[in-house]
Structures are given as C-alpha cells and as structure tokens.
C-alpha cells in the first residue's frame, strides 16, 4: 500500500496558526494508512511530539539532534558547505524516537539562548 509514494512535506505558518496540529495530525493519519512516516520537528520551540501523542513528560526528555552532526566541508573550488557527518540512516537509528502508529520523530533542536546567534 502506497509504497510508491516518497514525499517530503513541510508545514509552515505563523505561530498560533495551528501548523503543528496540522503537521502532527497529518503524520498520524498518513501512518494509519500504512505509510512509513518520519516526523521532523524543525521548530526551535518544539511541541510536535505531544501532537503526535507522546506524553508530555516523555516529550520533554527527547534529545535534539546534536550540533556535532554537522561538518563544514570545503570543496576544490574553495566553497564551504555544511554536510551531515554521518549517513541519515545512522542518524535516524540513533536519535529518532518512536511515536504512535509506527512514526519516527526527530527534533532539530531547541534554541540555546545562551549561545544563540
């Protein structure tokens, strides 16, 4: 069922617009249709976990992806780009947490106010 689908959906909007509700609910409904779903919380004030159905006390303990996963590489032309230090499968296996209906969730990171900017 649906194995041919491969789609990356980004949900955006103003704070309070309900974007997290839309993203989380859509992820659950897609997973219930039999799709393998990866949920990504890219908000620096993350609360997708709760909308997915992870209890609040557990949601608080989900570690964000560490910044050391990114490396700066300079190619032959001298241009610098940011790349992942490890293959995505390895990163997901290590850091993604399970959510209901077989969803996997990764957190991009809370704002570190002390060191932000």
């Amino acid at each position, binding site marked *: 069922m649906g194995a041919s689908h491969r789609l990356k959906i980004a949900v955006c909007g103003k704070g309070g617009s309900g974007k997290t509700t839309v993203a989380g609910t859509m992820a659950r409904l897609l997973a219930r249709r039999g799709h393998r779903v990866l*949920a990504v919380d890219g908000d620096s004030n993350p609360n997708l976990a709760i909308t997915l159905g992870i*209890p609040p006390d557990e949601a608080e303990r989900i570690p964000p992806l560490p910044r050391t996963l990114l490396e700066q590489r300079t190619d032959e032309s001298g241009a610098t780009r940011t790349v992942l230090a490890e293959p995505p499968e390895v990163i997901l296996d290590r850091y993604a947490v399970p959510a209901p209906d077989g969803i996997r969730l990764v957190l991009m990171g809370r*704002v570190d106010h002390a060191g932000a900017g």
Partner: protein
Amino acid sequence: MCRTHATVRSLLGALVGSVEELTVADMEAGLEHLSRGTARHADAILAVVEPYFKSLETGRKAYECARELGIPHVYVVANKVRTPEEQDAIAAFCRRHGLQLLGAIPYDEAFAAADREGRAPVDVAPQARGIAEIAALAGRLLDVGGNGGR
C-alpha cells in the same frame, strides 16, 4: 539558530532516498526559514493560515517564497474556519493572488481540548470534523505529490 536551520536543511536534503517514504516537517514559525532556504528540499509546502488578514498575508508571502525556491507543490491550508463566509473570504483571497488552496479545516473544539490535555487530537477525538478534513488534505497531497514517484 543558524545551526538549527542548517541541520533541518541538511537532514531534509539527505533524507532523499532514505528509508521513510513520507516526511512531515513542522517548520519554524514565521518566514525566516523560507527566506534562508531551509525548506528548499521539500516536495510540498503547506502554508497554514487563519481567516484574518495578517495571517493570510503571511501565508501569501510564505507561498511566494516557496514558489521562488522551486518547490513543486505549494498550497495554502486554511485553519480554524468558523463560518462559510470565512471560507469564502479565504477562497477569494487565494483566487485574487493566484494561490492554490488545498482545503479548509473547520474550527474544532476537539483540537483545543487536545491542546489543554497535552494529547494528540487523533487520540482525543478521532471522529472530529477537523480530523476528517486533515485526512482529506493528506489524501489530496498523496494524489498530487505521489504521482512523480510512480
């Protein structure tokens, strides 16, 4: 902040051909991530708007940023729609600005209740009208977005 953006961008990009078929990303509130290109690896962008002018304007800007990035599927999704008049106003706004409206989610007290309880709306009220509309949106997205991969 910069690192957060860079991580989302790298991860979304690198997940092409990865194990999961579907990725649903809840992006940073506001437009900054779009102007920086964080979402540029997405196949579909949903700009969630509420039925009032400032929200619609933000949605329009997000939509236009996403088009400039070359995202194949960009849609407005109306949320918290209370009346047919509000729905008509959103549809008119989208027509006027050439924005594609994927659907309108009715205001649903079940969502507010789920928020208060710290639970998932699909667990609190699986039969809610708002849930049914999000299911319909998801179906439409798979129809248009999934065709490219067949």
